[in-house]
């Protein structure tokens, strides 16, 4: 497969995905979970199976006085109720109120988070993210310090970072889309997943670039040198490994998405989408970019 030859197809495909993600991100925005903006998530189970979410909504609205609460029915009488952050006193009051109204009600989880915590958490993650990006940039600059022909080592680094952005923007777009379609929220786990993608997706790119580097050492002195051929053969040598590696990782975690606990579902979706995008970009985007950049400079 001549990836360099058909590079424009991949560039266009990625371009569309990125544009769509940016579109989703800026038009739908993302729904932020309570750990980022504050609020209450309350999971309760009502034994009386006749109770519907509308009943619960009106009952809770009456007890609490909140009109903007949202209620999601899960299964087996399980409901998730969301409203602004409340005091422990009110929590007990509402709980009692529900018990009086519906009989047997049990509490599965209760999370109430003040808005200041969310702000601090966001701040922390911005730092973590910046710090992560910088450390990885430094590492790549160090790892590729010895290659300078025909592409300068900092160019490898820059392309790795560019493809890292590519790998992160697309899962963000996906979550924005799901937030718009299904009301899925992003939370701490989502940000952790993005951080993981940042580290993991780069590893594929590094392995491909390592191979290009190794092949350059072997070939560039032998005259009649073609950078495109070198890249293509490096990809050919690593493509099985790249795909199989991601596949085993995806296989290992995918049951957690399909039948795992609810709180891990979208964490896993973000991870899996990032892993797939990362593998795709290391083969079809990062290497052709290296080629294009090299040729631009030649002319």
């Amino acid at each position, binding site marked *: 497969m001549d990836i360099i030859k058909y590079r424009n197809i991949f560039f266009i495909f990625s371009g569309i995905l990125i544009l769509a993600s940016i579109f989703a991100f800026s038009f739908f925005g993302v729904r932020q979970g309570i750990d980022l903006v504050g609020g209450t998530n309350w*999971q309760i189970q009502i034994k009386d199976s006749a109770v519907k979410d509308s009943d619960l909504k009106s009952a809770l609205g009456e007890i609490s006085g909140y009109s903007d609460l949202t209620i999601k029915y899960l299964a087996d009488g399980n409901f998730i109720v969301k409203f602004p*952050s409340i005091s*422990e006193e009110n929590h*007990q009051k509402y709980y009692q109120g529900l018990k009086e109204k519906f009989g047997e009600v*049990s*509490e*599965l*989880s*209760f*999370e*109430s*988070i*003040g808005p*200041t*915590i969310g702000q*601090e958490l966001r*701040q*922390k*993650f911005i*730092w*973590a993210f910046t*710090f*992560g990006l910088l*450390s*990885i940039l430094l*590492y790549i600059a160090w*790892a590729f310090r010895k290659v300078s022909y025909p592409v300068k080592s900092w160019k490898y680094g820059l392309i790795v970072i560019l493809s890292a952005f590519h790998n992160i923007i697309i899962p963000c777009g996906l979550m924005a889309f799901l937030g718009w379609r299904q009301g899925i929220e992003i939370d*701490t*786990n989502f940000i*952790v997943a993005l*951080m*993981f993608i*940042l*580290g*993991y997706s*780069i*590893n594929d790119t*590094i*392995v491909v670039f*390592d191979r290009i580097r190794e092949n350059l050492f072997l070939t560039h002195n032998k005259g009649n040198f073609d950078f495109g051929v070198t890249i293509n053969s490096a990809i050919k*040598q690593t493509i*099985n*490994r790249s795909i*199989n*590696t991601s*596949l*085993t*990782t995806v*296989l*290992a*975690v*995918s*049951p*957690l998405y399909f*039948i*795992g*606990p609810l*709180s*891990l579902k979208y*964490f896993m979706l973000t991870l899996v989408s990032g892993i797939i995008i990362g593998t795709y970009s290391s083969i079809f985007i990062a290497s052709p970019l290296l080629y294009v950049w090299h040729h631009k400079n030649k002319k």
Partner: protein
Amino acid sequence: MNKNKFPTYIIFIILLAILAGFFDYQPIWSKVVSKIHLPQVFLRDWRLGLDLVGGSILTYNIDLNEVAATDRDSVVNGLRDVIERRVNLFGVTEPQVYTAEAGEDKHLIVELAGIKDINQAIEMIGETPLLDFREVEILPAAATSSAGQFAGEDSNYKFIPTNLTGRYIKSAQVDFDNFGKSVVSISFTDEGAKIFEDLTGRNVGKPLAIFLDNEPIEIPTVQEKISGGNAQISGNFTPASARKLVERFNAGALPAPIELLSQQTIGASLGLDSLQKTIFCGIIGFILVILFIIGFYRGFGLIASLALMIYAVLTLGIFKVIPVTLTLSGIAGFILSIGMAVDANVLIFSRMREELKKGLPKRAAIEEGFRRAWPSIRDSNITTIIIAVILFYFATSFVKGFALTLFIGVLMSMFSAITVSKGLLEMFTKNKEKQK
């Protein structure tokens, strides 16, 4: 034939893995320990996070506005000790109390795994027997009205806070005064005694107010300078209320007010459900991975699967020995690292196959394959390690679990690639050569 020497360490690793297998599975391991009379130290159980066993995390903001900047560290530490003592009264196993910086603010985080009545716990933690002494200035208007000893809200009095607060209380006890009424005797620490001496010396003949939770409970007039650091509070106590106050003082008065910012409570049933689902998913994921590598790589896939199994039981063993607190995301991190651990094997194997194609003999191909694959194995894991370290440093306790298991998992996978996978490959190739 030195070159064909059998790698004995692989036998050791396999034995270790079998041992780890027993060790990881608690029902069997507890039987093993009691059968061969091992000391109780060896009977370790898994340490599970409170999102799996149920429990609460409470986050408080510490109000340090009233505390001088130089005293803040000692106040925060004192506060943590006090809360720790109170929390220990709940009978929860291994409660965690720690402080965290949050920008300008200080937070106090209390983790109570397996707590049943969180409402009561919140009440007991948040109770602030915030005792302090205040100097009283009688405003001119009040001079005419001679009564009003207890007029806390009386605008004729002006209360001036002093730095004598509950943090200087050493102990308290219930006493009875001459009329048989309950009073609370407190004795101050040395430092507190000195402040108290100065304060009473300065205010002889004047009233001095005692405030509890920002309410004046008594405004006695100071008769003389009091040294020795003992004082008596004779508010309107019933025997019961006096005893309760004493208990609170002895558990320690809070040196600074705190405010509950957030609570996360996970019911035990939801925790157990999550745990069972996650373990089940982990097993399914593991089986899928093994089926795939055997299907794709055949013979080598079998070796890689064996290596992966050894990797998994050894890593779990390490989690149990350290012990790592396994949270939901922590187990997910481990499952993720299983998927990632295949990579090192694949890298080695594909390099080895290339070397074989070049015509190298088997053993030499293994050596060369390892040598060439190592930079890639190292490079591809370092970025994940960097991210895990950063996440561990920045994140909250649930996320720390993910970062830690991922970190240990990735390190172990590198270690297992150069020992387990290589050893197994050498073992099996040797056997094949023997058969020929």
